[in-house]
Every structure is written in structure tokens, then in C-alpha cells.
């Protein structure tokens, strides 16, 4: 069967089970958009290529399947660089197809030419510049294989226009042996010796903590984690990338560690004698000052990527594996620590002394942002998916929403990409149309990518967006207040400019505003009653609210600052 390269590309995506592509056409990718008309694959037409990338990420994080985005060459490709970098930091499986100028024009500074494989070399797991139509099936199959195996990540496939227009005899790789990847070995056998060395440490431990990272979600190990945690009775902390990997309602869950983590989670790590890292990478937002991090803990480090071992903290036992396999192996050998009663007594005292708190909601001030998040969460259907941008609202969402299952928390962790929330929500909803999807956003983040509300409305993707509008770049404002003598430099945005209700309405969405508690509850109820179009609520929140607890950048986790309400008691 003779196909054009373009037809072969679409057919290859179908072979990989792709159900939706987020994209925007342009000159160099034009040939590929023609056979797309005849394909079963849904295409979501975005308004900016950055939106396509974040939608693909939201889709991937909510469904566990690779997200796919397709854009043209030059600026189309550079506009998706931020989502690619974001996916690289958060190990999100992504396949990005970019058009490229014709082979003969490469290197001539042709119209809309850019070296996108060069640009993305450091922020993709791998990338391909396809040189013949015959190679398209192999490149696509390899891209999906690489994106989804081992430590997942973004893979870019760059296709020159003439390659898409030339013809090939259709074929498709039948096994990974045909992918021509002699240097790629994502799966290794579990090292039994190391499993046993770890068990010895577990058996000796009196103050263990399960430090659960995004790799636990990526390896679909939540069930194994629950079983292991319940059998051993160990306390669990879930990082920002792992929220939902362990139920927040579980009594052994201490919550999120790190810069804005729960006091008990941060302190339990600090005082632990054994830290079991499950797909986490000792990020600086978790460790604080590295020499002061969990100073008395032995480290068991489980990761599928061995480059993470000893990168930040030297491991006593490093096990290269997916998280699920290790937990199963430990369970098979009934690995258990010492009696943890004393340890739990200490932890419970911290939990009791320093729960998450905020000032009493009142109509004397604008809305408390924490109260808004809690109120949305209380009124939300079980299984609601939450996305966020980056900043204060993200931390409040992570702190005050109760996550019970994998795939319900979609955020930008490693890269900290403002503007992630709205397009990620659209992608999540496209992948999980059965779920309610709330984007908890900030006013600064919203303005970066909210043109995609047009996409949401026109594609029939009814997300709900809560803007915690404090009229500031809130996290920067918080740092300026705390560390720059309240010298507020370029952080004020205005609550009224733009008019978020009109913005929503102009884009075909329902726009609501809430300035007091009664309006807040009413707006949430209205939003929950609307299921056919996107809804945006402009919550007017108190700009003086800050995120606590907080460990200042570069400080030791021992110097955690609790909420002012709790300071006298500390």
C-alpha cells in the first residue's frame, strides 16, 4: 500500500492508539493536516501552541496515557518549547510532532525554519529529525516507546514538508526490536541483593518515612503503596508530584513535604532514621538546605532512572526499578520495621500542634483563598480532577484539596510554569470527560494562557476555572513582603483589569464573580450546575494572605515557619 508520509504519520498515530491530538496547523505541517480529516483521531484546535503542549500534558497526567501535540515549524515549534521543558521536568510522557521546512531548505534560513531538534535537545528525552517517509513509522513507534517506558518524558518528531509529501510503501514495526534503539534499555531486572539490603534497613528502622514521589504515580504503584504502608504501619508523605498516590484521608498520610509542606510531614522527614524514597528525586523544594536534610536518616532510593542516585543525597541502598516491583518484593518477604508506637506518638503530637490553619473566614475582608479552595473541594463530586497554575494558589490547592486517587492532581512541579492550569484542565477533561475538572488558578497565571477558553468552548470541553484573584503575582509578593522589606516591585496586577467576567463571556463561557462568602457559595453552586460550557469564577481574595508553613529558600527544614496563628505555641 503506497501512502504519503503525511498519511503514514496519521496512520502511525492511529496504530499507537492515539485518540486526541492537540494542535494548530501551519505551512510546514500542512500536508499532515489533510489526511487528518479522514482519521478517527480527534483534533483539538488550540489558539496558541503553548496551549497544545500543556493540554497534552494535562491529558497525560489525568489519563496515564501519552499526550500528543502537533504544530508547525519555526514559531509554532518554539511556542511549544515551554510545555516540552515542563514535561521533561515532570517526566510526563509526551509525543510532539513538528513540521519542518523541506529537506533542501534546511540550513538556508528558510521561512519559518528553526532548528527545533537542536533547541529541544536538552529538554526532550529524545528527538528525531525524520529523513525519509519510509522512516516515519519507525520514528513514531520509537517516540511512543521512549516517551512511555523507563522514566517517561517528552519526545519530539520533526518532519520536513517534502518528507510528508513523498510516498512510501506502508509498514509498521511489529516489535521493539525493529525500532533500532541499541542504546535504550529502560527495563532492568530487579537486583535481589539490593532488595534484601533494603529489607535489612527496613527491619532495623524505628523512625521510617515513606517519601513518595511522582515516580510512584508514573509506575501505577498506588495499590502496592497502600498495601505496603498498611502492612508496615509506616508514615507516608506525598510530594507535589505525587499528590493522589496515597489517599489524603488515610490516617498514615502526613501530607506534602517541602517548602510549603505540612509541619508533620517536614518534621517527620527531618527526624527519621530511614527515608524510603519511592520515585522521588530529592528536589530542592523538598530538601531545603541539603546538608541539613534528614541528617540522621539512612536512605533507600528507588528509581527507574539510575542517574537520580547520589545526585543530591547519597543513598545507602539504591534500587533501580519501578516502584511497584520493589514494594511487591518487600511485601513478599514481609519486610517490616520495628514497633512504631513511639514514632507515631511523636508524629501525632506534631500533627495535633500544627495542623493546616488559616484566619477565620469573614466578610470584613476579601475572601480567604484557603477557604475558597476548601469550599470548592467540599462541594465537588468525588473523583474531581484539579489542575493549577504556579504560585500561591497552587500551594493552597495542594494543601487544602483532599486527593484520594491517582490522576486527580495535575500541576507543573519541576518547571513551575505559570499558565499551566487552564490548558492542562482542557487536556485533562478531553481525556476524562466523565470527570469534573476544576482549574484552581491565580490571576497572574490565568492571563498567560486563558485564550484557550475559546478552545474549551468551541471544542465542547466544559472545564471550571476558579481564579483566586488577589490582584498580585502573589508568591512573588509574599517573598517581597517577607524577604525584601515589603518593597513590592512589579507585582501589582489590579483586580479589575482585565474584567474576568467579561473575558469569560467574550470567550463563550459563563463568567461569575464572588466578593463575599455568600456570593462564593452561590457561585460554586452555579458552576457545579453547569455542565455544558466552561465556567470562570472571579473570586476576589485577600492579597495579604501568605502560604504557610514555609521553609525559606536555602534554609534548613528545621527552621520551618508555621502560620502566625500557631507561632506563640511553638
Amino acid at each position: 500500500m503506497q501512502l504519503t508520509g503525511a498519511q503514514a504519520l496519521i496512520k502511525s498515530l492511529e496504530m499507537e492508539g492515539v485518540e486526541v491530538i492537540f494542535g494548530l496547523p501551519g505551512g510546514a505541517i500542512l500536508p499532515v493536516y489533510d489526511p487528518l480529516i479522514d482519521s478517527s483521531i480527534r483534533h483539538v484546535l488550540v489558539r496558541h501552541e503553548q496551549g497544545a503542549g500543556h493540554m497534552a500534558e494535562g491529558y497525560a497526567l489525568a489519563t496515564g496515557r501519552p499526550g500528543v501535540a502537533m504544530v508547525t515549524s519555526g514559531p509554532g515549534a518554539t511556542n511549544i518549547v515551554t510545555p516540552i521543558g515542563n514535561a521533561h521536568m515532570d517526566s510526563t510522557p509526551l509525543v510532539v510532532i513538528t513540521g519542518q521546512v523541506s529537506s533542501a531548505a534546511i540550513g538556508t534560513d528558510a521561512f519559518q525554519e528553526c532548528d527545533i531538534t537542536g533547541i529541544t535537545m536538552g529538554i526532550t528525552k529524545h528527538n528525531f529529525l525524520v529523513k525519509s517517509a519510509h522512516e516515519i513509522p519507525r520514528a513514531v513507534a520509537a517516540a511512543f516507546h521512549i516517551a512511555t517506558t523507563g522514566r517517561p518524558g517528552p519526545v519530539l518528531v520533526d518532519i520536513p514538508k517534502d518528507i510528508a509529501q513523498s510516498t512510501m510503501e506502508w509498514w509498521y514495526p511489529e516489535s521493539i526490536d525493529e525500532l533500532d534503539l541499541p542504546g535504550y534499555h529502560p527495563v532492568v531486572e530487579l537486583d535481589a541483593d539490593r532488595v534484601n539490603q533494603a529489607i535489612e534497613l527496613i527491619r532495623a528502622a524505628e523512625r521510617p518515612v515513606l517519601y513518595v514521589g511522582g515516580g510512584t504515580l508514573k509506575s501505577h504503584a498506588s495499590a502496592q503503596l497502600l498495601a505496603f504502608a498498611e502492612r508496615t504501619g509506616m508514615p507516608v508523605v506525598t510530594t507535589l508530584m505525587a499528590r493522589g498516590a496515597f489517599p489524603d484521608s488515610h490516617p498514615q498520610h502526613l501530607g506534602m513535604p517541602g517548602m510549603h509542606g505540612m509541619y508533620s510531614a517536614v518534621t517527620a522527614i527531618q527526624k527519621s532514621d530511614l527515608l524510603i524514597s519511592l520515585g522521588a528525586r530529592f528536589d530542592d523544594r523538598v530538601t531545603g538546605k541539603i546538608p541539613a536534610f534528614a541528617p540522621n536518616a539512612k536512605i533507600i532510593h528507588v528509581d527507574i532512572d539510575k542517574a537520580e542516585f547520589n545526585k543530591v543525597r547519597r543513598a545507602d541502598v539504591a534500587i533501580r526499578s519501578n516502584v511497584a516491583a520493589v514494594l511487591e518484593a518487600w511485601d513478599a518477604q514481609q519486610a517490616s520495621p520495628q514497633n512504631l508506637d513511639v514514632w507515631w506518638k511523636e508524629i501525632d503530637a506534631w500533627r495535633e500542634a500544627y495542623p493546616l490553619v488559616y484566619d477565620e473566614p469573614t466578610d470584613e475582608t476579601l475572601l480567604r483563598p484557603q477557604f475558597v479552595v476548601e469550599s470548592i473541594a467540599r462541594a465537588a463530586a468525588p473523583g474531581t480532577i484539579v489542575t493549577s497554575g504556579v504560585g500561591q494558589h497552587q500551594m493552597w490547592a495542594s494543601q487544602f484539596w483532599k486527593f484520594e486517587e491517582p490522576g486527580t492532581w495535575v500541576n507543573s512541579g519541576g518547571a513551575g510554569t505559570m499558565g499551566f492550569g487552564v490548558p492542562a484542565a482542557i487536556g485533562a477533561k478531553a481525556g476524562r470527560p466523565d470527570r469534573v475538572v476544576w482549574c484552581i488558578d491565580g490571576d497572574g497565571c490565568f492571563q498567560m494562557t486563558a485564550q484557550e477558553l475559546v478552545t474549551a468552548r468551541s471544542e465542547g470541553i466544559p472545564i471550571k476555572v476558579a481564579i483566586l484573584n488577589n490582584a498580585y503575582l502573589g508568591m512573588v509578593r509574599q517573598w517581597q513582603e517577607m524577604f525584601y522589606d515589603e518593597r513590592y516591585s512589579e507585582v501589582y496586577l489590579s483586580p479589575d483589569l482585565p474584567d474576568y467576567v467579561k473575558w469569560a463571556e467574550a470567550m463563550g463561557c459563563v463568567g461569575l464573580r464572588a466578593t463575599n462568602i455568600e456570593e462564593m457559595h452561590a457561585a460554586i453552586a452555579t458552576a457545579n450546575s453547569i455542565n455544558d460550557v466552561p465556567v470562570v469564577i472571579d473570586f476576589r481574595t485577600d492579597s495579604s494572605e501568605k502560604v504557610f508553613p514555609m521553609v525559606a529558600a536555602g534554609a534548613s527544614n528545621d527552621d520551618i515557619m508555621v502560620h502566625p496563628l500557631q507561632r506563640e505555641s511553638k
Partner: protein
Amino acid sequence: MNTPEPFLGATSHTPVRHHILSVMVENKAGVLARVAGLFARRGFNIYSLAVAPAETKARFSRITIVVDAESAPLEQIVEQLDKLVNVVAISDIAPKDALERELLLATIKTNVDSRTSLLDVVGSSGAAIVDVDAGSVTLMLAGTPAACDELERELENYTTVELHRTGRVALPRLGKVALAAVPD
């Protein structure tokens, strides 16, 4: 490539403490850029680098990279290199276990007075004359980096027009751990 200044000994072209990484890669466009880019992104100095197809199989190349052990935490470099999809195998050869060789080519101005003594230098260093004209000589030395260093010092007494070294390639000494085999 970066200047070797920060880690050079007073007279030697060899880093004070160096590592030799022999990296087998797929022989494809852009692979060298991926490898070199990885060093650059982390601010690691490459002292010398030599690339050529491995054994007789054109599908793979060996890249011999000499890095300064002081400037770079080797464990991280090796692990990050290993993550590159096009990198097939990495061998870290300890300098004491390595047979290191490189090639030096130099064109030296000569006159009647200097030509005889230059020929003595060539003879005693094991170099060879590869080109001659009325006013200059091009010589070549294939040898250890130390031998090339020594010849270079000797040539400081003459007027050098051009001098170029290839950067070293290395194999483990017999009896030491061999390099990874080229895949079929």
C-alpha cells in the same frame, strides 16, 4: 571547545587528574552534538575529544573524551551520558590502565642552520618527516601524550608555523577490563 587553562600543569598538555571516557554511540547525525551538549549544559570542560567509526562496523562510533576529574563529578556525567538514547556503552578507563596515543603534526620553519638540529630532534623523538620544502619541514609524531608534550617543548626552540594535535584515543591495557563490544 573550552580553553584548557584551568587544569593544565605548568608545562603539560595533560590535565592534572583526568578521566578517559570511551563512549560508543550510534553513528548518526547530531549524536556528537548531544554528547558535547551534555557536557556544556553542566559546565564541564572537555579537554580533548576524538571521534571515528568503531572497529569495522560503520553503524557505531567511538568517542574518546578526556575530562578533568576536578571539574566534573564523573558519576553524574556517566549516568547522564548513559541516558542519551544514542549512547550504546560507556567505558571509564583509569589513566593507569590506559594505552593512550595521539598524533601531532607540525610545520616548522627551517634554514640551513636549524635544519640539522631539527632533524636530530625528529630522530630522537621518534617523529617522522612527512613534507619538506625549501624553507620548512612538516613532521609527525604518533605517540603517547607525554611524548607529544616533550616534542612540543623541543619545538619551542624553532619557529613553528602550525602545530596541531588530534586529541587522544585510548584502549585499556591488555589484562584490564576491555571496552564494551560493538553490538551486532
